[in-house]
């Protein structure tokens, strides 16, 4: 029997304001700062450094306005570039940098904010920490206010970091301030989204998944809006399509930092943040601690017949995330394939820009569609790598949570346990990349684009597999030799690989440094001239590393904690 809501004594719903509550709020905030100190510093420094390096690369590579104009003209003719980058607003150095990097910065700020929100709300309720705190005079609500304060402070830091990164490269201070505020405002929206989603989802895994997917959706909506925008008369500016207006990241772009420095579009993210926070607050006031709007569904009283091996269990535990990665891969494939037609339509004699590109591509012996596909498929390779390392992270989580012990106390050996996850991870890699290939193939066939032969498409897909397998084998070795570092090391290695291998060129990094990333060695199919040595080399590295991990597992104790 639940008491009617209005019987809940109003006095216990502390509202920050009186002195004692203020003290408690500061203690709670301090605890959040303490828990997040490394994480928060890493996010803020990474976002600021990303802004700094991007601005520096623009200075280095596109130092003069003529070069920037040329690139912008290519970009406006190429929806894929607009999709990934942003909205061209002129050849000014600041506006050009904003076009190149803002959407990524906003994406990062959004992810930081949702993870922060869920970590201090739903995750705390799940582990029972929230209950301990709620039993003190802090109550049920004040900890959420502290999370809000913490998140707002984090996004102010992000805004300052972006401002500092751009301004340090000599970009216009007012534009840099606008860019920083636009990044922080997107972070605030997703802080609110994360807090709201945490009220609905019963698990932190679910809340993180849904809110991160909403961040990615905002990025994609903005991309569609930008790719379908209207080019301006001067060939270096565009006006966004309607889809951008449904995305908080799109709203950030509407500030036209450096070219217009408009502040009013930021009222939209601030308004949405307030709406989300109010909704979250209303739900929070009326729900039990640990409860959620979408409650837990009952399970099966007996297992399906197939659930009878460690691999079957691993699949059961990870099927949700594997399906998510695979669908993302398929979406990327569809995008890659459908861009072919748009590009082909532009690829007619008479448009100067594409003539230049066509000459360049013909020299390499590949079509424009093939270039698009190989660029976008490198993203599918990153998705597959992330999916692979999650399989290994799951192993570590099973060990830390103590559920591994249940399994290893029945006739399942350590090596078989590890090998099952590695097999599943490898299969997932093939699935993610395979579905990207299927998506691209279907889109190409659907649009009647014949400029990319099917075997070239499958070669491009296949080329992504070895790098992803490295991200299965190396985390597995880390898991066996240094278990407590598994999660942090796996994600750090992937982030490093992406920065060095995929953004390395744009950031103007040294080739030796870029060679450290597996993605640098992913072959780019060029018909018979394709150099597959990188793929074979990476396959060999992955196989040897995985074999080492399995061998070392024989001597590895499996513990909890």
């Amino acid at each position, binding site marked *: 029997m639940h008491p009617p809501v209005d019987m809940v004594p109003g006095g216990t719903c502390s509202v920050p304001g009186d002195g004692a509550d203020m003290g408690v709020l500061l203690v709670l905030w301090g605890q959040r700062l303490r828990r997040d100190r490394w994480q928060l510093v890493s996010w803020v420094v990474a976002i600021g450094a990303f802004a700094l390096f991007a601005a520096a690369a623009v200075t280095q590579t596109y130092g003069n306005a003529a070069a920037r104009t040329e690139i912008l003209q290519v970009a406006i003719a190429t929806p894929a570039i607009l999709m990934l980058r942003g909205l061209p607003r002129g050849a000014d150095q600041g506006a050009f940098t904003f076009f190149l990097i803002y959407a990524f910065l906003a994406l990062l700020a959004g992810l930081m904010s949702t993870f922060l929100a869920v970590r201090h709300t739903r995750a705390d309720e799940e582990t029972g920490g929230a209950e301990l705190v709620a039993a003190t005079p802090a109550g049920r609500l004040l900890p959420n206010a502290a999370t809000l304060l913490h998140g707002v402070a984090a996004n102010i830091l992000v805004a300052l970091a972006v401002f500092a990164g751009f301004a340090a490269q000599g970009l216009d201070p007012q534009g840099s301030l606008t860019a920083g505020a636009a990044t922080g405002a997107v972070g605030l929206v997703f802080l609110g989204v994360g807090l709201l989603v945490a009220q609905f989802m019963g698990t932190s895994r679910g809340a993180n998944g849904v809110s991160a997917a909403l961040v990615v959706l905002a990025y994609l909506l903005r991309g569609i809006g930008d790719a379908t925008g209207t080019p301006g008369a001067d060939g270096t500016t565009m006006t966004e399509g309607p889809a951008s207006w449904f995305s908080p990241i799109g709203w950030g772009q509407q500030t036209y930092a450096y070219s217009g420095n408009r502040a009013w579009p930021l009222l939209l993210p601030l308004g949405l943040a307030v709406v989300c926070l109010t909704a979250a607050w209303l739900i929070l006031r009326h729900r039990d601690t640990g409860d959620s709007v979408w409650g837990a569904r009952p*399970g*099966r009283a007996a*297992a399906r017949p197939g659930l*009878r091996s460690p691999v079957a269990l691993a699949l059961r535990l990870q099927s949700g995330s594997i399906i998510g990665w695979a669908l993302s891969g398929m979406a990327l494939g569809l995008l890659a394939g459908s861009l072919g037609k748009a590009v082909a339509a532009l690829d007619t004699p008479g448009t100067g820009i594409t003539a230049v590109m066509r000459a360049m591509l013909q020299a390499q012996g590949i079509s424009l569609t093939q270039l698009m596909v190989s660029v976008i498929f490198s993203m599918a390779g990153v998705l597959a790598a992330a999916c692979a390392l999650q399989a290994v992270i799951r192993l570590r989580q099973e060990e830390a949570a103590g559920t591994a012990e249940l399994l290893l*106390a029945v*006739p399942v050996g350590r090596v078989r346990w590890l090998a099952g996850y590695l097999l599943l991870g490898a299969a997932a890699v093939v699935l993610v990349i395979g579905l990207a290939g299927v998506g691209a193939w279907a889109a190409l066939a659907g649009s009647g684009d014949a400029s990319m032969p099917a075997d070239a498409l499958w070669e491009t897909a296949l080329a992504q597999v070895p790098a992803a397998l490295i991200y299965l084998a190396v985390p597995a070795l880390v898991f066996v030799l240094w278990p407590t570092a598994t999660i942090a090391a796996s994600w750090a290695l992937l982030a490093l690989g992406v920065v060095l291998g995929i953004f390395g060129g744009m950031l103007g990094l040294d080739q030796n440094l870029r060679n450290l990333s597996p993605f640098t060695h992913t072959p780019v199919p060029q018909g018979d001239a394709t150099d597959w040595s990188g793929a074979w080399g990476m396959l060999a590295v992955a196989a040897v590393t995985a074999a080492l991990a399995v061998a070392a597992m024989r001597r590895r104790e499996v513990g909890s904690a």
Partner: protein
Amino acid sequence: MNTVVHTANLHKHFGHVKALDGLDLDVQRGEIHGFLGPNGAGKSTTLRILLGLARPTSGSAAVLGFEPWSQAVELHRRLAYVPGDVRLWPNLSGGETIDLLSRLRGGTADGAAYRRRKESLCQEFDFDPAKKGRAYSKGNRQKVALIAALATEAEVYLLDEPTSGLDPLMEEVFRRELLAAVGRGATVLLSSHILSEVEVLCHRVSIIRAGRIVDGGTLDSLRHLTRSEVSFAADGLDAQALARLGAVHDLTLDAGRVRFSADSDRIAEVFPALGALGVQGLTIVPPSLEELFLRHYGDASAAPEPEADAPSGGHGSRRHLLSARGRS
């Protein structure tokens, strides 16, 4: 082969910490062997080594003749384990977890018989198998592991504080099931710090402290080392009269009752004196394992005590031992 579990001079070190420091443990076929000790004494570490989840630093361990670290899989076909703190997969229901573990143990070949057994256990333990793992309370998580262990037969049961979180009714169900398993010829190693449970169930006990077995044997043999508590109404008895009780320990007169303790194996010697005094409201509380425990909790020395053969000297040493801690 009647020794089912055997360890000899077993050591397990974590850095400088000696979790096990020369542990010698023997469990005979068909017995319920109590494995008693305070938190941190090394009970779980021992069980993890016996399961092959952890590797001994030195010394040997054998279960059913298998070396657990290298032959874990063969061993686990004939063994069932219940951890003290059961963790479940949050998105698997309890029923699914029980089925999975039973199938992996190969105990579901006869599907119909297994399902009947599982259902009757769920009923006895009053357990709802259709909830997700994350939704169970501690006691219900414990039931998942207990039902999974009992649903298919095993030769050896390793139970690490298996009833933690269960209510007394469920403890009773657990006892019944365990006795049934032993009736079939199974062997049980039951780690616990719940003394009443061990007293009811176990044929023999081993007491572990700081990584070594400090005492062991049948409960009766251990009771030789303890005292029974005697009390009766004071009703006009004075100190002079009480002096006739002879060599008893800790004689007190408080709140109208006289209390003293007497060595358990010599309790009959005080009956004539009690009879001569004509005492009223006599109660004699038999020694509990609490006492055994107290002896070893506070005991600074892991070696057998010199006064073990002379129970009358035991009490003074207990006080001393409680105050002097941690020489090892």
